């Protein structure tokens, strides 16, 4: 088992493996996206209360799930990277941050587009919105810390420490914001409660969620390959790879 992990996590091996996987991941992502969007935009019935505008959940909800999921992935790989000093884990932490920030931004933008016709405001200081916004700042903090330190090995460990501190803080932020609002403001803005969502609505949503997850793996692999080449540029395997590609 450990041998398998060590082998897979070694940069040259992973580089090749990720390269092999990439077309498959891309294909599955695109197929699932088409299926999910067709299901969400055309097949799913119109909501009796919100009309057609509810359909934004097919982007919004999976994006919001991903924003949290990626942060958890980052924290876990940060811990692995710090404890066992696995280079690949460090790279996963670093490469996930921009993707996570992208999903967080997507969730915020789609949410605000939905909020304008539904709540009559682009932005409300609701618990979820605020917590998501702070999550976005955490992602930005991680990205700029990584960019600010020139030695990338040191930078990725610094980022790992920050990601771990952040993961302790995320539940605290989440609940603080939630309590702050429920104590402070009347229940004007209900959360995304779905009392028994229609089956035909749910299926496309789940397809979209899976599509987003696989898209994450796909784009993560692309970023990882570049990152690995960049970091290992002085090693033999990168040099021989470049020599092979020359002819």
């Amino acid at each position, binding site marked *: 088992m450990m041998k398998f992990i060590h082998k897979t996590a070694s940069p040259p091996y992973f580089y090749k493996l990720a390269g092999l996987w990439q077309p498959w991941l891309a294909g599955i992502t695109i197929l699932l996206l088409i299926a999910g969007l067709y299901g969400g935009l055309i097949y799913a019935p119109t909501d009796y209360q919100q009309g057609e505008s509810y359909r934004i959940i097919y982007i919004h909800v999976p994006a919001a799930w991903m924003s949290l999921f990626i942060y958890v992935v980052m924290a876990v790989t940060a811990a692995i990277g*710090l404890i066992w000093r696995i280079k690949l884990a460090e790279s996963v932490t670093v490469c996930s941050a921009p993707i996570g920030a992208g999903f967080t931004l997507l969730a915020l933008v789609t949410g605000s587009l939905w909020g304008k016709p539904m709540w009559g405001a682009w932005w409300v200081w609701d618990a979820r919105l605020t917590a998501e916004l*702070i999550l976005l*700042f*955490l992602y*930005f*903090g991680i990205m*700029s*810390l990584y960019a*600010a*330190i020139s030695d990338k090995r*040191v930078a990725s*460990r*610094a980022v790992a*420490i*920050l990601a*771990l*501190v*952040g993961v*302790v*803080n995320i539940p*605290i*932020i989440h609940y*603080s*914001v939630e*309590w*702050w609002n429920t*104590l*402070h403001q009347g229940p004007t803005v209900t959360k995304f409660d779905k009392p028994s969502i229609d089956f035909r609505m749910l299926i496309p949503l789940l397809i979209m969620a899976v599509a987003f997850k696989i898209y994450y793996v796909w784009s993560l692999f692309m970023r990882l390959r570049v990152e690995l080449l960049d970091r290992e540029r002085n090693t033999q395997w990168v040099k021989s790879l470049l020599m092979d590609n020359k002819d």
Partner: protein
Amino acid sequence: MNQSSLTNVFFALLKRDLLLAFRHRAELFNPLMFFVLVVTLFPLGTGADSKLLQTMAPGIIWVAALLAAMLSLDAIFRSDFEDGSLELLVLNPHPTSILVLAKVLTHWLVTGLPLIIVAPLLAVFLGLDSSLIGLLVLTLLLGTPVLSLIGAVAIALTVGLKRGGILLSLLVLPFYVPVLIFATNAIEMAASGLPVVAQLWILASLLILAITLTPWPTAAALKLSLS
């Protein structure tokens, strides 16, 4: 023989840092002046409507305290990093995480405590109800150490960088959100006559969490910055 026990080293470090801080008296007053100035800017910016100021007073004072704490974080490690004494601190046989607490304690004594002393005066200027001033001081007493402790992690991460200023605010401010929320919420609740025990307990538990958890990442980050 007991010269270099952990307690002795801790207090020696505390004494040295406090002494250093008092030798630079002008720098000592800078965060305080900043705090007072920021609070003064609000009535000028929002108009001197006393009702408005009264409701905003806890928020204004807390945001100003937050910014003052953040801007003074540099003092925790910067000069020691530059003259190399930080390396000695890390090479010391005693656990760095405990020694770091001495530095954070100094920071709080030098910047946090003066803010707390001045805050009631500013609260009076903003027209905060006099019965709430005690509570404001209590939230500041519980909250500002947390700001120093969390800030120490961020400053330890960025101390090796030439320009860490704006980056520091990006790293630190998201983590300050819970403290700000619970502290100002406590005062607002009290203003409308509701019990605030829950908020105070949460602030206290945040303080305990910060004391127990932040020294490790701070020490780890310091070692990283020195490598």
